[in-house]
């Protein structure tokens, strides 16, 4: 008996050491990436200053042009950071996770657009002042001066189309493919905007350091987009030759889809991660759907569990088990690798229980104690119940299933009955302060759980969320 206990303690100490080291590595990487992103802006300004850019601010009449150039430089820098964030660079995914990278990508879009708009307006004004032309004639003069400038004007026009149509799409909830198609236009706009930066005098003149620096950045980020979003996913899908082998109904509108292929171990997928799936079924081929694995990958098969929310997931559930499958991934930090403590609390709601189920299978073998909390409004909405009950049979796992409607008028992630019994996150999970909390469910519900966790005194690095699958 004592021998067994000692083994557990030793294993747990070793894991504690591992966890601290992994956490430090991740922090260092995340700091490095954020630092580099900020520093790229500094380099852009430094190259401008090193080229005597401050001269634009000597005479008041030149200041507009100087500001216009700076706005263009900052705007281009943000665009490049956005491209890299969307490029699925493995380093970025490992350090901050796909969803945080994409959230930053979206957050930068507006500042980048306004900076480029300012670049456009300020340079028209600035050159107009210099040549004594009104803005309209100056704009006309610019747009017709060289083909590169015409491209740049076209690029801005494309961006305007993208923004207007994005607003329309949000209003009318148009299909994802249409949104994606329009979004691709921004990449065309970025490419159309490149030539004028290198040919229209200013900073990037031939032979300057700035020319090489910016060229390297553009080549690098466009290359990593192509490599990590197109070439590697395609090569992986072909090499592993993924195919649907079974579709098992879990509930009236929910099904588990099993995918098999060659050498699946080499995908190095981890429990809790997700792939972006493309199914070669009629009408589904070009749509990518992010679905988390709903079972820990065992090297032989991958399983996802899908609820029909849109018309295409309906078609997917009804599909015949034969089609070829293309995947991008694995992505995400919703894994045991994200742990900072020795205990884990896994919380899932609705179809968000799927990555929790996969994660539990791995977590129960590495964490000291695992508390699982599953939440559904009614019995029929609790998916994968038998899987959870089987996994929770292990001694260090405690399973709470909370079914019932939330209290009316009072936002809570728990059910009315559970609240009346005085339950909070701390009463449900022993050792909460020495735990990592993994949450997956609808966004508003997830926010409420996060709030509860913070109230209980948990540090931000102890809270992990996955927002894709719900």
């Amino acid at each position, binding site marked *: 008996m004592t021998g067994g206990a000692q083994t557990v303690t030793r294993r747990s100490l070793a894991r504690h050491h591992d966890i601290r080291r992994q956490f430090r590595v991740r*922090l260092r990487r*995340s*700091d*490095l990436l*954020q*630092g580099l992103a*900020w*520093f790229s802006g*500094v*380099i852009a*300004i*430094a*190259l*401008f*200053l*090193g*080229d*005597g*850019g*401050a*001269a*634009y601010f*000597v*005479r008041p*009449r*030149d200041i507009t*042009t*100087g500001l216009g150039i700076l706005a263009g430089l900052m705007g281009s820098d943000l665009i490049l950071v956005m491209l890299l964030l969307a490029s699925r660079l493995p380093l970025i995914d490992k350090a901050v996770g796909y969803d945080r990278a994409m959230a930053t990508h979206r957050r930068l879009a507006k500042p980048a657009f306004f900076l480029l708009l300012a670049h456009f307006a300020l340079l028209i004004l*600035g*050159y107009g*002042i*210099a*040549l004594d032309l009104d803005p309209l004639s100056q704009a006309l003069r610019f747009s017709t*001066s*060289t083909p590169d400038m015409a491209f740049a004007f076209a690029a801005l026009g494309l961006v305007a189309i993208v923004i207007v149509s994005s607003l329309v799409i949000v209003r009318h909830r148009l299909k994802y493919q249409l949104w994606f198609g329009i979004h691709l236009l921004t990449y065309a706009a970025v490419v159309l905007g490149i030539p004028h930066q290198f*040919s*229209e*005098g*200013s*900073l990037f*003149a031939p032979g300057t350091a700035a020319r090489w620096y910016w060229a390297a950045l553009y080549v690098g980020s466009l290359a990593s987009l192509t490599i990590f979003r197109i070439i590697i996913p395609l090569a992986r899908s072909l090499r592993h030759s993924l195919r649907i082998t079974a579709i098992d109904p879990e509930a009236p509108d929910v099904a588990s889809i099993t995918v098999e292929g060659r050498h699946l171990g080499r995908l190095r997928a981890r429990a809790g991660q997700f792939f972006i799936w493309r199914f070669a079924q009629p009408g589904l081929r070009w749509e990518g759907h992010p679905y988390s694995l709903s079972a820990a990958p065992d090297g032989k098969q991958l399983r996802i569990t899908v609820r029909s929310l849109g018309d295409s997931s309906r078609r997917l559930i009804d599909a015949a088990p034969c089609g070829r499958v293309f995947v991008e991934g694995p992505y995400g930090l919703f894994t045991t690798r994200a742990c900072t403590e020795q205990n884990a609390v896994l919380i899932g709601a609705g179809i968000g229980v799927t990555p929790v189920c996969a994660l539990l299978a791995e977590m129960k073998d590495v964490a000291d104690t695992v508390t699982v909390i599953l939440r559904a409004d009614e019995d029929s909405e609790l998916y994968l119940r038998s899987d959870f009950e089987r996994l929770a049979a292990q001694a260090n796992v405690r399973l709470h299933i909370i079914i019932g409607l939330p209290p009316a008028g009072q936002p809570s992630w728990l059910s009315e009955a559970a609240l009346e019994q005085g339950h909070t996150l701390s009463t449900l999970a022993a050792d909460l302060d020495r735990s990592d909390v993994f949450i997956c469910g609808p966004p508003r519900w997830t926010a409420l759980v996060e709030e509860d966790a913070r109230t209980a005194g948990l540090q931000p690095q102890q809270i992990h969320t996955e927002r894709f699958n719900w």
Partner: protein
Amino acid sequence: MRPLAITLLVIGSTATLAGAWLVGQPRLIEAIDIAAQLESPASVHSERPTSTATESAPASSAPARPITDTVDGSIVTTKYGTVQVQAVITDGVLTDVIATKLTDSSDTSIALSAKAAPLLREQVLAAQSTVVDTVSGATYTSEAYLTSLQAALDAAGL
């Protein structure tokens, strides 16, 4: 980001910007000088006489039936805008240079190229070649002007 990372970032950024400022300083000082020159138009005129002595020398060698040809020079892109000149050649002699496009990226560069172009024109007409001094303070414009003109002369076989 952790405090240490932020500190390193701030120190690194300050050092980079300070270094860049030092590298760019000569151009900045030049720009301040030029701005001062442009504020007082008299000083621009005072530079003119240095090259007016050799004016209109080539015109005397014109034959009875002159054949005049206008050749476009290449478009040269500089940091401050594009430059293009036309060479007017009469019986194998360069008789005039017309600047069709001059640097115009800022008010300063327009003022500078307006100052530099006549000086350059006089010099190249006198030398009958592009091997002439560049105008101080307008190096980019001068070099682009002479490059464009050389292309025109090459095209004309001069």
